[in-house]
C-alpha cells in the first residue's frame, strides 16, 4: 500500500510544481482539498447510496415476507424470494468497502448478517419449538442462526424458490423475525455511515424500532456519522492513508473473490464453501462484488451515476493508460466470472461436477490481476 501512497505523492508533486513559493503546509492543504473531494464523492455517491438502497431493499423484503405470511401463495413466495435477492444484490455491492461501521470491531454488521456456515441444528430446534421468536429476540441470537443465509435457507432450495406448501407456520414466523433482524442491521449500517440526523423520518422510525440496536450504536459512538470521519481523514495518519481505503478495499475484495470465493472451493471440490448455497446465486454475488469495485473506482452505483472526481480520474491524470487498464480489467473480471456458468450452470453445480475448469481458472487469474493492479499502481506508474 505504500506504493499507493507514493503514487499519491507523485501527484502531489505535479500539483505542487506550479507553486514553488508555497511551503509544505500549502501543498498539504492543496492535496487535502483534492483528496477530500475524491473521498466525498466516494462516500456520497457510492457508499451512502449503496447502504440506503440496501436498507430500502431490506424493508421491501420485510413487506414481502409479511405478505407471504398473511397470504401464503406461490406468487407471494416468489415475490418474497425476489425481494431477498434484491437485498442480497445491494449487500454484495457493498463488499468493496467493508470497513468503518460494518467491521467486526465496530458494529459487526458484516459478521451479523452474512455468516456462513449456518448452525442448522439450532435452527431446526428453534423451528421445532413452533417459534414465537420475535425480531428483537432474533437480533440477539448468534449470527449462525440469522442473517442473509438463514432467510435464504427458508426461502430457497437447490437454486429455486421453495413451493409455498413446503413452508410450515414456524418457518414463516422464523422468516419474519430473522428478516426484522436483517432490516435493523441494514438500516444500522446506513444510519451509522450517514448519521441519524441525516436520514428520513421513515428510516429513523425503523432504526428506533429496536432499542437494542439504538443502544448498540450508542455504545460504539465512534462510528456515528462515519462519513464525516472518512471525508475529514479523522483518525488517519494522513490524507493519503484515508484515500488509500478505496484502493485497499478494492484490492481486498478482488483477491477474496478470486482466491477465496472461487478458487478455493473449486480446487477442494467443496460445495459447502460456495457462497449463497441455497439460492445458487454465487456467480451473481461475485460479479456484484466486482461491480462494487467498479463503483468505488469510478464513483456512483451504476453506469448512469458515474462521477468526475474519483480515484479513476486521479489515476487518469497521471497515467491514462493505467486507468484504462484498470477499467478494462474490471470489465474482464465481470465477463470471466459470468463465463464460469457456461452451459447454464450455477457455481454450486460447477464445483460439484468439477466442470468449466478453464473458465474458473481464467476468472481467478483476472481477479488476481485486478487485485495486483490496485495493489501496485505506483510501480506500474
Amino acid at each position, binding site marked *: *500500500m505504500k506504493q499507493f501512497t507514493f503514487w499519491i505523492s507523485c501527484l502531489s508533486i505535479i500539483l505542487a510544481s506550479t507553486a514553488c513559493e508555497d511551503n509544505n503546509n500549502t501543498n498539504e492543504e492543496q492535496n487535502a482539498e483534492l483528496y477530500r473531494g475524491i473521498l466525498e464523492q466516494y462516500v456520497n455517491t457510492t457508499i451512502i447510496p449503496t447502504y440506503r438502497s440496501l436498507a430500502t431493499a431490506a424493508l421491501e423484503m420485510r413487506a414481502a415476507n409479511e405478505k407471504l405470511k398473511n397470504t401464503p401463495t406461490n406468487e407471494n413466495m416468489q415475490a418474497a424470494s425476489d425481494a431477498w435477492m434484491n437485498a442480497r444484490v445491494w449487500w454484495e455491492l457493498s463488499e468493496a468497502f467493508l470497513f468503518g461501521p460494518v467491521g467486526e470491531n*465496530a458494529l459487526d454488521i458484516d459478521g451479523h448478517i452474512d455468516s456462513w456456515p449456518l448452525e442448522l441444528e439450532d435452527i431446526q430446534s428453534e423451528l421445532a419449538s413452533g417459534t414465537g421468536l420475535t425480531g428483537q429476540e432474533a437480533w440477539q441470537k448468534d449470527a449462525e442462526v440469522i442473517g442473509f443465509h438463514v432467510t435464504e435457507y427458508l426461502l430457497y432450495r437447490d437454486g429455486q424458490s421453495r413451493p409455498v406448501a413446503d413452508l410450515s407456520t414456524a418457518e414463516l414466523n422464523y422468516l419474519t423475525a430473522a428478516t426484522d433482524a436483517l432490516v435493523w442491521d441494514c438500516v444500522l449500517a446506513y444510519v451509522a455511515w450517514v448519521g441519524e440526523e441525516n436520514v428520513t423520518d421513515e428510516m429513523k422510525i425503523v432504526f428506533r424500532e429496536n432499542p437494542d440496536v439504538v443502544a448498540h450504536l450508542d455504545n*460504539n459512538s465512534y462510528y456515528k456519522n462515519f462519513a464525516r470521519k472518512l471525508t475529514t481523514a479523522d483518525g488517519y495518519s494522513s490524507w493519503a492513508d484515508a484515500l488509500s*481505503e478505496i484502493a485497499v478495499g478494492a484490492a481486498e475484495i478482488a483477491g477474496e473473490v478470486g482466491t477465496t470465493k472461487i478458487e478455493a472451493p473449486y480446487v477442494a471440490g467443496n460445495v459447502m464453501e460456495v457462497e449463497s448455497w441455497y439460492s445458487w446465486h454465487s456467480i451473481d454475488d461475485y460479479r456484484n462484488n466486482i461491480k462494487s469495485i467498479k463503483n468505488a473506482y469510478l464513483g456512483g452505483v451504476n453506469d448512469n451515476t458515474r462521477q468526475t472526481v474519483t480515484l479513476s480520474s486521479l489515476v487518469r491524470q497521471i497515467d491514462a493508460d493505467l486507468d484504462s487498464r484498470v477499467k478494462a480489467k474490471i470489465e474482464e473480471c465481470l465477463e470471466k466470472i459470468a463465463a464460469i456458468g457456461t452451459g447454464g450452470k450455477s457455481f454450486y453445480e460447477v464445483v460439484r461436477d468439477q466442470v468449466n475448469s478453464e473458465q474458473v481458472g481464467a476468472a481467478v487469474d483476472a481477479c488476481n490481476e485486478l487485485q495486483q493492479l490496485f*495493489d501496485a499502481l505506483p510501480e506500474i506508474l
Partner: protein
Amino acid sequence: MGRRTTITRVLLLLTAAACSGGDAVKEKQYSEEWYAGGVNGTVFNATSRAYRQPMNIISEDPLLYQQFMRGERVAEKSFVADNSMSYSGLGPVYIRKSCIACHPSYGGRGKRVDKFDTSDSRNSYLLMIYDPSLPDLPLATSHFTGMTQTSAVPPFKPPVDEAGVHLQWLPYVDEHGNKYEDGTAYELVYPRVTIDQSAILFPDFDMSRHAASIEATIGLYGVALLDAISDEDLRAQHAAEVERGYCVGVIGADIDETGLNPYYPGKHPGRFTYLCTRATLDNGPGSNAIWNITNVTRPDRAYHYITDAYARLSAADPDVQQALGQTGEEILAYLLARDLPPEMTAADYEAFMVWHRGIAVPAARDLDNPVVQRGRTLFNETGCTACHRPSWTTRTDYAPLPALSNQKIFPYTDLLRHDLEMHEPGRARVCRTTPLWGRGLMKVTSGYTDMLHDLRARDYPEAILWHGGEAKPCKEKFRKMSREDREALVKFLEAI
C-alpha cells in the same frame, strides 16, 4: 486481503524537490526503524486494514499466498456443531466460535466492554478463575480449563453461566489525586469481576474461595518475528537485566516442546502470553487456541480441551444422557477420548499457521516529524526502553519461515515479565512487556485505543499512568512533563 508486491524503499520529498529547480523528485532511503517488522516482515499500510496484511514474502509466493488466504478463512469463520456443514466440530464445550471473535481486525484487540458477553464481537476477554490465597495465583484447573469455558453445545451445559459473570468498572484515584504536575486532571478506571455461585455448574466448587479476572487478547501481527528471536538472545536480555539490578524482568520458565514443535523440539523459555506460558509459535497461543478455544480436534490434538471434573459431571447428568440416548460411561468415554476423529484437516491447520506467521507488522509512520523525534528523545530519557527494548535481530536460521531470519525488528519489548503493581491487576500481575509496534494504528483499525492486559487504559496516557512498581519512576517523569512533552511522547508511541 491484498497480494502485495515488493516495497519501494524510497520516500518522496515533495516540496523540497519540486522547488529546488533540479530533479522533480528527490529520493531518500527509509531508515531501518521504519521497518518495524524488518524488511521482510513489514508492510506500508496505515488504513483500517493495516493489521491484516500478508508479508510480502507471503504475497510473492503463490503457494504460501494460497495457504495464507485459506488460513485467514479458517481464522475468520465461526465453527458450528452441525456435522453436515463445513467448519464443523464446535464443542462440546467451548470459549468462542472463531479466532476473529477475540481478534477483531485480525491483529486488533478487543474493546473495553461493560458486560461479559462472548457473543459480542468486541469482547475479546478471556475469563480466568484462580485461587487468590496462593502466591502464584494458580488457576482453578481442578474444575475449569485454564481459559474458562462459558459456552456449550446442547445438551452439554457450560461450566459457567455468563449471565452470572459481572463486570464492573470502578474509578481509581492515585496518590497524586489523578493530576499531572501541571494541574491537568486525568481519570483512571479498573475492572472487578465477580461470579455468582449459582452460575457455577459444579456443586462442589466454592466460588467464594476463588477470584476471577479478565485478560484481553494480544495483537497477532508480527508474532513469527518474536518467535524468530533466538533463545540465547532472550536469555542474554534477561541476564543483562539481572546484571543492571533494576527493572529486572522475569523470564518465562523453560518448556519442553519435544513432540510438540516440529521445528524446535527441546526446551525453550516461555515468551508468549501475558505470563510467558508458551515458548514457541508452533506450540504457541494461536496453535493451541484454534483447538482449545473452539474444541475443534485435529490430527495432533485428537482430544477435547476439557477437565475430568467437567466430563464426569456431564456424563452423570440425566439431561445429557437422555438427550444423547447414551449411558454415562459412553458419554464419559467420548468426552475423555484421546483418539477422536479430526474435525480440522492437517492441511487446514498448516494453512492456518502460514496465516498466523505471515501477518505483517505495519510500518512506522511520521518518524521524520520533529514532534515525533522529540517524543523519541523523551521516551529514551524517561527510561521506557529499560523494558520496552526497541529492537532485536532475529536468529540466522528461522526454520518455519526462513525469510524472517536476520531481520532487525522494532517491537519495543524485552519479552520478559514485570510487576507494575497495578491496583487489582487480577491474575496477570507480573505481566509480559507489551510490544508497542503498530499500536498507534488502533484508532483507525478499531475506533478505540483500549490498552493493557485488561483494557483498563483508554489511551496511551492512561496506560503510562498505570505503570507503577518497577516502572513507577518512568510514570512520575511522564506525570511531571509539560503538556507539550506528554503529547510529543504519545506522538512517538503512535508513530512506531
